[in-house]
């Protein structure tokens, strides 16, 4: 296999051979502030990568008969946070439209966890994302983006309204604010760690 084994430290002095990259997804409805959040915490200007979908038919099994003959370009925003040399966090804003969900499957492969951004004025927009991550048992936190002028709801109210599993953290945040964004990520990593430990215990017990 051509893959480099990341465990093999060997005599190779370059830190690259043990480099570890972790992936966090940022999901939520259209215009809820996904790119804003990625931009607020990323050390690089959010980059945009595109997936060109030219193979009609391969991905269109559940688009409800929508004829997708032409080439479609899906853009994904992403950012990076370097924790130290050889350990970085990548944030991916998931494409908003439901018909690009097959991309989520790829994105969520091996993801550490996800942030579901919610806007209390249209909470239903984040239902699909919540369903998606609950189904696949991917640890996620719900971050309520507190837009100015939006009536403030408490975390408990949002949790109830979304019918979240017990323990799923709900954080109030301001997606434009770096510290606020950092806090959301910290809560997610903590939660992902707890979920992981619990699962390990499950398999033992």
């Amino acid at each position, binding site marked *: 296999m051509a893959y480099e084994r990341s465990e093999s430290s060997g005599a190779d002095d370059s830190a690259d051979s043990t480099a570890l990259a972790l992936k966090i997804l940022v999901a939520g409805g259209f215009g809820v502030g996904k790119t804003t959040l990625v931009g607020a915490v990323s050390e690089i200007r959010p980059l945009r990568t595109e997936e*060109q979908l030219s193979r009609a038919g391969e991905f269109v099994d559940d688009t409800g008969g929508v004829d997708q003959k032409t080439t479609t370009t899906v853009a*994904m925003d992403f950012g990076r946070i370097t924790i130290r040399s050889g350990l970085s966090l990548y944030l*991916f804003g998931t494409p908003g439209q439901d018909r690009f969900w097959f991309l989520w499957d790829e994105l969520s492969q*091996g993801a550490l966890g996800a942030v579901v951004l919610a806007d209390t004025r249209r909470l239903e927009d984040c239902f699909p994302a919540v369903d998606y991550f609950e189904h696949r048992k991917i640890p996620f936190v719900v971050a309520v983006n507190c837009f100015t002028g939006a009536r403030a709801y408490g975390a408990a109210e949002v949790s109830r309204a979304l019918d979240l599993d017990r323990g799923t953290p709900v954080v109030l945040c301001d997606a434009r604010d770096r510290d606020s964004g950092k806090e959301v990520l910290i809560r997610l990593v903590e939660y992902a760690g707890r979920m992981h430990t619990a699962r390990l215990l499950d398999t033992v017990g």
Partner: protein
Amino acid sequence: MNEDSTGVGPSVPGSQWYDADAGPLVRPYAMTGGRTKPGPSNVRFDLIALVVVDDDPPGPAEESLLGPEHRSLLALCRAVTQSVAELSADADLPVGVVRVLLGDLLESGFVRVSRPVPPAQLPDERILREVIDGLRAL
């Protein structure tokens, strides 16, 4: 096509200027010879797979045979270890195309690729602790 005939001077068909807004003038997969999947080894490059230049790459003679897109990717990898997603953004090429090109570079021994984190397998607690501390310190 009919919008740009407003200018002065003769409008010879095919002489129009296109800017970036017109989109790519070359179909993306033309750069890969029509291939939409990486070569025979069929590696699947994760978006966060890190691409490193191989310690013992083929010589300049072989490198000169590479296409311009291959070479620009290689140049980006040389500058700094990057993820597939970053390479795609920096090279301004769709991810699918970058994957095919990287497959070529991998097979010919120019680059190495880090193994993506296996699904549902989280790094150990020590790493997560490090991430949390690192985030706090930002």
